[in-house]
Protein backbone atom coordinates (compact mmCIF):
# COMPACT_ATOMS: atom_id res chain seq x y z
CA UNK A 1 0.00 0.00 0.00
CA UNK A 2 1.31 3.44 -0.88
CA UNK A 3 1.81 5.99 1.85
CA UNK A 4 -0.92 8.62 2.14
CA UNK A 5 -1.49 11.59 4.41
CA UNK A 6 -3.92 10.94 7.24
CA UNK A 7 -7.51 11.99 6.66
CA UNK A 8 -8.47 15.07 8.60
CA UNK A 9 -11.59 14.45 10.70
CA UNK A 10 -13.79 17.33 11.84
CA UNK A 11 -16.95 17.11 13.89
CA UNK A 12 -19.41 19.98 14.29
CA UNK A 13 -20.42 19.61 17.92
CA UNK A 14 -23.22 22.18 17.63
CA UNK A 15 -24.95 19.84 15.14
CA UNK A 16 -24.06 16.56 16.87
CA UNK A 17 -27.14 14.99 18.46
CA UNK A 18 -25.19 12.56 20.62
CA UNK A 19 -26.40 9.33 19.04
CA UNK A 20 -22.99 7.73 19.50
CA UNK A 21 -23.31 5.90 16.20
CA UNK A 22 -19.92 7.20 15.00
CA UNK A 23 -18.32 5.66 18.09
CA UNK A 24 -20.07 2.33 17.49
CA UNK A 25 -18.93 2.20 13.86
CA UNK A 26 -15.46 3.71 14.35
CA UNK A 27 -14.48 3.30 18.01
CA UNK A 28 -10.87 4.26 17.28
CA UNK A 29 -11.94 7.60 15.82
CA UNK A 30 -14.85 8.81 17.96
CA UNK A 31 -16.09 8.66 21.51
CA UNK A 32 -19.33 9.84 23.07
CA UNK A 33 -18.34 12.39 25.68
CA UNK A 34 -19.89 12.34 29.17
CA UNK A 35 -21.75 15.52 28.21
CA UNK A 36 -23.49 13.55 25.44
CA UNK A 37 -21.71 14.87 22.33
CA UNK A 38 -19.09 13.07 20.28
CA UNK A 39 -15.41 13.93 20.28
CA UNK A 40 -12.70 13.04 17.74
CA UNK A 41 -9.92 10.86 19.17
CA UNK A 42 -6.22 11.20 18.36
CA UNK A 43 -6.30 7.72 16.87
CA UNK A 44 -8.78 8.93 14.22
CA UNK A 45 -5.78 9.71 12.04
CA UNK A 46 -4.83 6.04 11.87
CA UNK A 47 -8.37 4.75 11.38
CA UNK A 48 -9.17 3.06 8.11
CA UNK A 49 -10.57 5.41 5.48
CA UNK A 50 -13.56 3.20 4.68
CA UNK A 51 -14.52 3.01 8.34
CA UNK A 52 -14.33 6.80 8.67
CA UNK A 53 -16.48 7.26 5.58
CA UNK A 54 -19.05 4.80 6.92
CA UNK A 55 -19.21 6.62 10.25
CA UNK A 56 -19.61 10.00 8.53
CA UNK A 57 -22.30 8.72 6.16
CA UNK A 58 -24.29 7.10 8.93
CA UNK A 59 -24.19 10.08 11.28
CA UNK A 60 -27.83 11.12 11.85
CA UNK A 61 -27.06 14.82 11.46
CA UNK A 62 -24.21 14.49 8.93
CA UNK A 63 -21.99 16.65 11.11
CA UNK A 64 -18.71 14.80 10.42
CA UNK A 65 -16.48 16.22 7.69
CA UNK A 66 -13.55 14.28 6.23
CA UNK A 67 -10.77 16.04 4.35
CA UNK A 68 -8.25 14.18 2.24
CA UNK A 69 -5.24 16.06 0.88
CA UNK A 70 -6.99 19.40 1.38
CA UNK A 71 -10.28 18.52 -0.30
CA UNK A 72 -13.50 17.45 1.38
CA UNK A 73 -14.48 13.83 0.73
CA UNK A 74 -17.85 13.70 -1.00
CA UNK A 75 -19.91 11.27 1.07
CA UNK A 76 -22.68 10.71 -1.43
Amino acid at each position, binding site marked *: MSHTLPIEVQLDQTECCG*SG*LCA*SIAPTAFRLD*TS*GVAVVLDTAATTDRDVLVRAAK*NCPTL*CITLTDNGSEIDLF
Partner: protein
Amino acid sequence: MTGVLTTLRAGDPGLVVVGGGIAGLRTVQTVRSAGYTGRVTVVAAERHLPYDRPPLSKQVLTGELAPEAPVYHGAEYFADLGIDLMLGQQARRLDVERRVLHVGDAGGGELTVPYSAVVIATGARPRRLPCAEPPEGVHVVRTVEDAAGLRAELLTGPQVAVVGAGFIGAEVASSARALGLDVTVIESAASPLARAIGQSMGDLLGGLHARNGVRLVCGRGVTGLHGTDRVEGLLLDDGTSVAADLVVVGVGVVPDVEWLADSGLPLDDGVACDEYLRAGRSEVLGAGDAVSWPNRSPGRDAYRTRSQQWTTAGDQGRHVAEVLVYGADAAGPFEHDLYFWSDQYGVKIQGAGLLNRDAALLELRPDRSRLVAAYRDADRLGGVLTVNHPKEFRRLRALAAAGAPWSQIAPREMSLADDLSGGDAA
Protein backbone atom coordinates in the same frame (compact mmCIF):
# COMPACT_ATOMS: atom_id res chain seq x y z
CA MET B 1 -38.18 31.01 39.40
CA THR B 2 -38.02 27.44 40.62
CA GLY B 3 -39.15 24.05 39.49
CA VAL B 4 -40.60 21.17 41.47
CA LEU B 5 -37.18 19.56 41.99
CA THR B 6 -35.57 22.68 43.48
CA THR B 7 -38.05 22.88 46.36
CA LEU B 8 -37.32 19.40 47.70
CA ARG B 9 -35.98 18.69 51.18
CA ALA B 10 -33.49 16.10 52.32
CA GLY B 11 -35.13 12.70 52.45
CA ASP B 12 -37.68 13.47 49.73
CA PRO B 13 -37.93 10.64 47.21
CA GLY B 14 -36.82 12.83 44.28
CA LEU B 15 -37.20 12.17 40.57
CA VAL B 16 -38.47 8.91 39.12
CA VAL B 17 -38.27 8.40 35.35
CA VAL B 18 -40.29 5.59 33.79
CA GLY B 19 -38.67 4.30 30.60
CA GLY B 20 -34.99 4.05 29.68
CA GLY B 21 -35.07 5.19 26.05
CA ILE B 22 -33.58 8.41 24.67
CA ALA B 23 -36.30 10.55 26.31
CA GLY B 24 -35.58 9.06 29.75
CA LEU B 25 -31.81 9.27 29.23
CA ARG B 26 -31.85 12.96 28.26
CA THR B 27 -34.11 13.71 31.25
CA VAL B 28 -31.71 12.29 33.81
CA GLN B 29 -28.61 13.75 32.11
CA THR B 30 -30.19 17.19 32.02
CA VAL B 31 -31.45 17.34 35.62
CA ARG B 32 -27.85 16.63 36.64
CA SER B 33 -26.27 19.19 34.32
CA ALA B 34 -28.87 21.71 35.53
CA GLY B 35 -27.59 21.23 39.07
CA TYR B 36 -30.17 18.97 40.70
CA THR B 37 -28.36 16.78 43.23
CA GLY B 38 -31.23 14.80 44.80
CA ARG B 39 -32.26 11.25 44.09
CA VAL B 40 -32.87 10.03 40.54
CA THR B 41 -34.31 6.60 39.74
CA VAL B 42 -35.00 5.15 36.30
CA VAL B 43 -37.49 2.26 36.06
CA ALA B 44 -36.94 0.55 32.71
CA ALA B 45 -38.62 -2.59 31.37
CA GLU B 46 -35.69 -3.60 29.18
CA ARG B 47 -32.69 -5.35 30.73
CA HIS B 48 -30.23 -3.22 28.75
CA LEU B 49 -28.60 0.05 29.57
CA PRO B 50 -30.15 2.84 27.47
CA TYR B 51 -29.33 2.11 23.83
CA ASP B 52 -29.82 3.64 20.40
CA ARG B 53 -32.89 2.33 18.57
CA PRO B 54 -32.50 3.84 15.05
CA PRO B 55 -29.62 1.52 13.99
CA LEU B 56 -31.83 -1.54 14.63
CA SER B 57 -33.54 -1.33 11.23
CA LYS B 58 -30.38 -0.21 9.46
CA GLN B 59 -26.80 -1.03 10.49
CA VAL B 60 -27.79 -3.89 12.81
CA LEU B 61 -29.77 -5.69 10.09
CA THR B 62 -27.09 -5.22 7.45
CA GLY B 63 -24.41 -6.42 9.85
CA GLU B 64 -22.49 -3.13 9.98
CA LEU B 65 -23.11 -3.13 13.73
CA ALA B 66 -23.13 -6.21 15.93
CA PRO B 67 -26.61 -7.36 17.00
CA GLU B 68 -25.95 -6.23 20.57
CA ALA B 69 -27.53 -3.24 22.22
CA PRO B 70 -25.77 -0.10 20.87
CA VAL B 71 -25.60 1.43 24.36
CA TYR B 72 -24.89 5.11 24.77
CA HIS B 73 -22.90 4.87 28.01
CA GLY B 74 -21.62 2.16 30.32
CA ALA B 75 -22.92 1.38 33.82
CA GLU B 76 -20.18 3.44 35.48
CA TYR B 77 -21.43 6.56 33.70
CA PHE B 78 -24.79 6.28 35.48
CA ALA B 79 -23.12 5.43 38.78
CA ASP B 80 -20.93 8.55 38.47
CA LEU B 81 -24.03 10.66 37.85
CA GLY B 82 -25.71 9.16 40.90
CA ILE B 83 -28.55 7.61 38.93
CA ASP B 84 -30.23 4.43 40.15
CA LEU B 85 -31.18 2.19 37.26
CA MET B 86 -33.92 -0.36 37.92
CA LEU B 87 -33.52 -2.38 34.73
CA GLY B 88 -35.85 -5.20 33.70
CA GLN B 89 -38.67 -3.79 35.83
CA GLN B 90 -42.03 -2.78 34.50
CA ALA B 91 -44.15 0.06 35.87
CA ARG B 92 -47.67 -1.29 36.41
CA ARG B 93 -49.64 1.57 37.91
CA LEU B 94 -49.27 5.18 38.96
CA ASP B 95 -51.00 6.53 42.05
CA VAL B 96 -50.86 10.29 41.54
CA GLU B 97 -52.61 11.10 44.84
CA ARG B 98 -50.11 9.20 47.00
CA ARG B 99 -47.26 9.90 44.56
CA VAL B 100 -46.26 6.28 44.29
CA LEU B 101 -45.28 4.17 41.29
CA HIS B 102 -46.12 0.47 41.44
CA VAL B 103 -43.46 -1.63 39.79
CA GLY B 104 -43.51 -5.32 38.96
CA ASP B 105 -40.35 -7.35 38.52
CA ALA B 106 -39.78 -10.37 36.33
CA GLY B 107 -40.20 -12.68 39.34
CA GLY B 108 -43.84 -11.65 39.73
CA GLY B 109 -43.22 -9.47 42.78
CA GLU B 110 -44.34 -5.89 43.16
CA LEU B 111 -42.61 -2.94 44.77
CA THR B 112 -43.69 0.62 45.37
CA VAL B 113 -41.46 3.50 44.40
CA PRO B 114 -42.41 6.89 45.87
CA TYR B 115 -41.62 10.04 43.92
CA SER B 116 -41.57 13.81 44.29
CA ALA B 117 -41.74 14.19 40.51
CA VAL B 118 -42.26 11.54 37.84
CA VAL B 119 -41.51 11.61 34.11
CA ILE B 120 -43.40 9.23 31.86
CA ALA B 121 -41.10 8.15 29.03
CA THR B 122 -42.37 4.67 28.18
CA GLY B 123 -42.23 5.19 24.43
CA ALA B 124 -44.26 3.09 22.04
CA ARG B 125 -44.47 -0.45 20.72
CA PRO B 126 -45.12 -1.68 17.20
CA ARG B 127 -48.71 -2.04 16.06
CA ARG B 128 -49.50 -5.60 14.93
CA LEU B 129 -51.68 -6.69 12.04
CA PRO B 130 -55.34 -7.16 12.93
CA CYS B 131 -55.28 -10.75 11.63
CA ALA B 132 -54.05 -13.97 13.24
CA GLU B 133 -50.29 -14.55 12.94
CA PRO B 134 -48.56 -17.92 12.55
CA PRO B 135 -46.15 -18.41 15.46
CA GLU B 136 -43.01 -18.24 13.32
CA GLY B 137 -41.64 -15.88 10.71
CA VAL B 138 -43.59 -12.72 11.52
CA HIS B 139 -41.43 -9.92 12.93
CA VAL B 140 -41.54 -6.35 14.19
CA VAL B 141 -38.50 -4.17 14.99
CA ARG B 142 -38.43 -2.16 18.17
CA THR B 143 -35.94 -3.79 20.52
CA VAL B 144 -32.44 -5.17 20.13
CA GLU B 145 -33.90 -8.68 20.61
CA ASP B 146 -36.30 -8.04 17.72
CA ALA B 147 -33.44 -6.90 15.51
CA ALA B 148 -31.13 -9.77 16.45
CA GLY B 149 -33.89 -12.33 15.80
CA LEU B 150 -34.77 -10.75 12.47
CA ARG B 151 -31.13 -10.54 11.39
CA ALA B 152 -30.57 -14.22 12.19
CA GLU B 153 -33.54 -15.19 10.02
CA LEU B 154 -32.55 -12.85 7.19
CA LEU B 155 -29.24 -14.72 7.00
CA THR B 156 -31.09 -17.94 6.11
CA GLY B 157 -32.02 -16.35 2.76
CA PRO B 158 -35.81 -16.09 2.99
CA GLN B 159 -38.22 -14.47 0.58
CA VAL B 160 -39.21 -11.29 2.43
CA ALA B 161 -42.45 -9.31 2.56
CA VAL B 162 -42.58 -6.01 4.44
CA VAL B 163 -45.98 -4.68 5.44
CA GLY B 164 -45.96 -0.87 5.54
CA ALA B 165 -43.83 1.45 3.41
CA GLY B 166 -43.17 4.02 6.14
CA PHE B 167 -39.62 4.86 7.16
CA ILE B 168 -39.06 1.72 9.22
CA GLY B 169 -40.59 -0.52 6.56
CA ALA B 170 -38.44 1.13 3.90
CA GLU B 171 -35.30 0.77 5.99
CA VAL B 172 -35.97 -2.92 6.67
CA ALA B 173 -36.65 -3.51 2.96
CA SER B 174 -33.44 -1.71 2.06
CA SER B 175 -31.42 -3.70 4.61
CA ALA B 176 -32.90 -7.01 3.43
CA ARG B 177 -32.16 -6.06 -0.17
CA ALA B 178 -28.58 -5.16 0.79
CA LEU B 179 -28.27 -8.77 1.96
CA GLY B 180 -29.30 -9.84 -1.54
CA LEU B 181 -32.80 -10.99 -0.64
CA ASP B 182 -36.00 -10.95 -2.69
CA VAL B 183 -38.22 -8.28 -1.12
CA THR B 184 -41.81 -7.09 -1.63
CA VAL B 185 -43.27 -4.10 0.23
CA ILE B 186 -47.04 -3.82 0.67
CA GLU B 187 -48.54 -0.42 1.49
CA SER B 188 -52.26 0.14 2.08
CA ALA B 189 -52.18 3.85 1.17
CA ALA B 190 -52.10 4.98 -2.45
CA SER B 191 -48.67 6.56 -1.93
CA PRO B 192 -45.91 5.58 0.45
CA LEU B 193 -44.99 8.08 3.20
CA ALA B 194 -47.83 10.43 2.15
CA ARG B 195 -48.78 11.29 5.72
CA ALA B 196 -45.19 11.93 6.70
CA ILE B 197 -43.86 13.91 3.73
CA GLY B 198 -46.84 14.55 1.42
CA GLN B 199 -47.87 12.66 -1.67
CA SER B 200 -45.49 14.16 -4.24
CA MET B 201 -42.34 13.50 -2.23
CA GLY B 202 -43.73 10.18 -0.99
CA ASP B 203 -44.10 9.03 -4.60
CA LEU B 204 -40.65 10.29 -5.46
CA LEU B 205 -38.87 8.62 -2.55
CA GLY B 206 -41.08 5.53 -2.87
CA GLY B 207 -39.41 5.16 -6.26
CA LEU B 208 -36.24 4.16 -4.42
CA HIS B 209 -37.73 0.69 -3.87
CA ALA B 210 -38.13 -0.13 -7.55
CA ARG B 211 -34.75 1.42 -8.44
CA ASN B 212 -33.14 -0.96 -5.99
CA GLY B 213 -34.95 -4.08 -7.12
CA VAL B 214 -37.68 -4.17 -4.46
CA ARG B 215 -41.32 -4.59 -5.49
CA LEU B 216 -43.65 -1.97 -4.02
CA VAL B 217 -47.40 -2.70 -4.04
CA CYS B 218 -49.51 0.31 -3.01
CA GLY B 219 -53.21 0.60 -2.26
CA ARG B 220 -53.51 -2.98 -0.99
CA GLY B 221 -54.32 -3.96 2.57
CA VAL B 222 -53.22 -7.22 4.17
CA THR B 223 -56.26 -9.23 5.28
CA GLY B 224 -54.61 -12.44 6.35
CA LEU B 225 -51.42 -14.45 6.71
CA HIS B 226 -50.92 -17.87 5.14
CA GLY B 227 -49.24 -20.66 7.03
CA THR B 228 -49.92 -22.59 10.22
CA ASP B 229 -46.56 -23.16 11.97
CA ARG B 230 -44.57 -20.77 9.87
CA VAL B 231 -45.75 -17.90 7.69
CA GLU B 232 -46.01 -18.77 3.99
CA GLY B 233 -47.40 -15.56 2.55
CA LEU B 234 -49.80 -12.66 2.72
CA LEU B 235 -53.41 -12.49 1.60
CA LEU B 236 -54.31 -9.07 0.19
CA ASP B 237 -57.69 -7.35 0.08
CA ASP B 238 -58.02 -7.87 -3.70
CA GLY B 239 -57.88 -11.62 -3.15
CA THR B 240 -54.31 -12.02 -4.42
CA SER B 241 -51.47 -13.47 -2.39
CA VAL B 242 -47.81 -12.63 -1.94
CA ALA B 243 -45.51 -15.55 -1.13
CA ALA B 244 -43.10 -14.94 1.73
CA ASP B 245 -41.36 -16.99 4.36
CA LEU B 246 -40.45 -13.97 6.41
CA VAL B 247 -42.81 -11.05 7.09
CA VAL B 248 -41.84 -7.80 8.78
CA VAL B 249 -44.70 -5.65 10.01
CA GLY B 250 -43.99 -1.90 10.02
CA VAL B 251 -47.42 -0.34 10.34
CA GLY B 252 -46.74 2.26 13.00
CA VAL B 253 -46.58 2.26 16.78
CA VAL B 254 -48.95 2.62 19.70
CA PRO B 255 -47.89 4.60 22.77
CA ASP B 256 -47.13 2.41 25.79
CA VAL B 257 -49.56 4.05 28.21
CA GLU B 258 -52.13 1.35 29.01
CA TRP B 259 -50.51 0.96 32.42
CA LEU B 260 -51.78 4.49 33.18
CA ALA B 261 -55.41 3.67 32.37
CA ASP B 262 -56.65 4.08 35.96
CA SER B 263 -54.24 6.88 36.92
CA GLY B 264 -56.64 9.69 36.08
CA LEU B 265 -53.99 11.30 33.83
CA PRO B 266 -55.30 12.73 30.56
CA LEU B 267 -54.81 10.16 27.78
CA ASP B 268 -55.34 11.14 24.15
CA ASP B 269 -52.94 9.64 21.62
CA GLY B 270 -50.56 8.88 24.48
CA VAL B 271 -50.34 10.96 27.63
CA ALA B 272 -51.94 14.28 26.69
CA CYS B 273 -49.46 16.86 27.96
CA ASP B 274 -49.70 20.64 27.94
CA GLU B 275 -47.24 22.92 26.15
CA TYR B 276 -44.76 22.54 29.03
CA LEU B 277 -45.08 18.74 28.77
CA ARG B 278 -46.94 18.53 32.11
CA ALA B 279 -49.61 15.84 32.34
CA GLY B 280 -52.30 17.69 34.27
CA ARG B 281 -50.14 18.11 37.41
CA SER B 282 -46.97 20.08 38.01
CA GLU B 283 -45.06 17.03 39.27
CA VAL B 284 -46.10 14.60 36.50
CA LEU B 285 -44.49 15.20 33.09
CA GLY B 286 -44.12 13.20 29.92
CA ALA B 287 -41.53 12.96 27.13
CA GLY B 288 -40.96 11.04 23.92
CA ASP B 289 -43.07 8.67 21.82
CA ALA B 290 -45.48 8.11 24.73
CA VAL B 291 -46.86 11.66 24.75
CA SER B 292 -48.83 14.10 22.65
CA TRP B 293 -48.57 17.85 23.19
CA PRO B 294 -49.71 21.07 21.50
CA ASN B 295 -46.78 21.84 19.20
CA ARG B 296 -46.36 25.19 17.55
CA SER B 297 -44.21 26.40 14.69
CA PRO B 298 -43.20 30.06 14.61
CA GLY B 299 -46.18 32.36 14.25
CA ARG B 300 -48.64 29.48 13.82
CA ASP B 301 -51.49 28.00 15.86
CA ALA B 302 -50.69 25.06 18.05
CA TYR B 303 -51.75 21.55 16.96
CA ARG B 304 -51.70 18.40 19.10
CA THR B 305 -49.23 15.84 17.85
CA ARG B 306 -47.08 12.88 18.92
CA SER B 307 -43.68 12.93 17.33
CA GLN B 308 -42.25 9.39 17.03
CA GLN B 309 -38.86 10.83 16.11
CA TRP B 310 -35.65 10.26 17.98
CA THR B 311 -34.53 13.89 18.11
CA THR B 312 -37.86 15.18 19.40
CA ALA B 313 -37.93 12.49 22.10
CA GLY B 314 -34.47 13.48 23.35
CA ASP B 315 -35.23 17.19 23.21
CA GLN B 316 -38.45 16.60 25.14
CA GLY B 317 -36.44 14.73 27.75
CA ARG B 318 -34.17 17.76 28.11
CA HIS B 319 -37.16 20.06 28.28
CA VAL B 320 -38.99 18.22 31.06
CA ALA B 321 -35.75 18.30 33.05
CA GLU B 322 -35.58 22.07 32.62
CA VAL B 323 -39.23 22.49 33.63
CA LEU B 324 -38.55 20.39 36.73
CA VAL B 325 -35.40 22.27 37.72
CA TYR B 326 -35.96 25.84 36.52
CA GLY B 327 -39.77 25.96 36.42
CA ALA B 328 -42.23 26.15 33.51
CA ASP B 329 -41.93 29.91 33.05
CA ALA B 330 -38.18 29.81 32.72
CA ALA B 331 -38.15 26.73 30.50
CA GLY B 332 -40.95 28.02 28.27
CA PRO B 333 -43.28 25.96 26.08
CA PHE B 334 -41.85 23.01 24.13
CA GLU B 335 -41.74 23.79 20.42
CA HIS B 336 -40.11 21.52 17.86
CA ASP B 337 -39.63 21.19 14.12
CA LEU B 338 -39.71 17.36 14.44
CA TYR B 339 -36.34 16.79 12.77
CA PHE B 340 -35.86 13.27 11.46
CA TRP B 341 -33.50 11.34 9.26
CA SER B 342 -33.69 8.01 7.52
CA ASP B 343 -31.01 5.87 5.87
CA GLN B 344 -32.22 3.67 3.06
CA TYR B 345 -30.81 2.35 -0.20
CA GLY B 346 -27.56 4.20 0.47
CA VAL B 347 -29.11 7.65 0.72
CA LYS B 348 -29.66 9.94 3.70
CA ILE B 349 -33.06 11.56 3.97
CA GLN B 350 -33.44 14.54 6.34
CA GLY B 351 -36.66 16.39 7.09
CA ALA B 352 -38.00 19.07 9.43
CA GLY B 353 -41.09 21.23 9.77
CA LEU B 354 -44.58 20.83 8.36
CA LEU B 355 -44.28 18.19 5.65
CA ASN B 356 -47.78 16.71 5.35
CA ARG B 357 -48.51 18.42 2.02
CA ASP B 358 -47.16 18.71 -1.49
CA ALA B 359 -43.73 20.25 -1.83
CA ALA B 360 -41.87 22.40 -4.33
CA LEU B 361 -38.75 20.77 -5.74
CA LEU B 362 -35.69 22.96 -5.70
CA GLU B 363 -33.21 20.35 -6.87
CA LEU B 364 -33.42 16.76 -8.05
CA ARG B 365 -31.10 14.29 -9.65
CA PRO B 366 -33.21 11.85 -11.63
CA ASP B 367 -31.69 8.89 -9.79
CA ARG B 368 -32.70 10.54 -6.46
CA SER B 369 -29.10 10.65 -5.30
CA ARG B 370 -29.78 14.30 -4.46
CA LEU B 371 -33.05 16.08 -3.73
CA VAL B 372 -34.04 19.38 -2.11
CA ALA B 373 -37.72 20.12 -1.51
CA ALA B 374 -39.40 23.05 0.25
CA TYR B 375 -42.84 22.94 1.86
CA ARG B 376 -45.06 25.97 1.88
CA ASP B 377 -47.11 27.04 4.89
CA ALA B 378 -49.36 29.89 3.65
CA ASP B 379 -46.94 32.75 2.88
CA ARG B 380 -43.94 31.17 4.56
CA LEU B 381 -41.44 28.37 4.26
CA GLY B 382 -42.91 25.69 6.53
CA GLY B 383 -40.59 22.73 6.10
CA VAL B 384 -37.72 21.15 4.21
CA LEU B 385 -36.83 17.68 2.97
CA THR B 386 -33.50 16.72 1.43
CA VAL B 387 -31.69 13.66 0.16
CA ASN B 388 -27.88 13.64 0.52
CA HIS B 389 -27.58 17.39 0.95
CA PRO B 390 -26.84 18.29 4.57
CA LYS B 391 -25.61 21.82 3.88
CA GLU B 392 -28.75 22.86 2.02
CA PHE B 393 -30.82 21.09 4.62
CA ARG B 394 -29.27 23.10 7.44
CA ARG B 395 -29.71 26.38 5.59
CA LEU B 396 -33.38 25.83 4.73
CA ARG B 397 -34.18 24.38 8.15
CA ALA B 398 -32.85 27.56 9.79
CA LEU B 399 -34.87 29.69 7.34
CA ALA B 400 -38.05 27.76 8.15
CA ALA B 401 -37.40 28.13 11.88
CA ALA B 402 -37.03 31.88 11.37
CA GLY B 403 -40.37 31.98 9.52
CA ALA B 404 -38.80 33.07 6.22
CA PRO B 405 -41.28 34.28 3.56
CA TRP B 406 -42.08 31.84 0.74
CA SER B 407 -41.07 34.49 -1.81
CA GLN B 408 -37.48 33.82 -0.78
CA ILE B 409 -37.86 30.23 -2.00
CA ALA B 410 -40.31 30.43 -4.90
CA PRO B 411 -37.93 31.69 -7.61
CA ARG B 412 -35.94 28.46 -7.38
CA GLU B 413 -38.98 26.21 -7.72
CA MET B 414 -38.69 23.72 -10.57
CA SER B 415 -41.29 21.60 -12.24
CA LEU B 416 -41.39 17.97 -11.24
CA ALA B 417 -42.42 16.89 -14.72
CA ASP B 418 -39.51 18.77 -16.35
CA ASP B 419 -36.89 17.21 -14.25
CA LEU B 420 -38.18 13.69 -14.33
CA SER B 421 -38.41 13.66 -18.11
CA GLY B 422 -34.76 12.64 -18.18
CA GLY B 423 -35.17 9.98 -15.56
CA ASP B 424 -38.02 7.66 -14.70
CA ALA B 425 -41.35 8.75 -13.32
CA ALA B 426 -41.36 5.98 -10.69
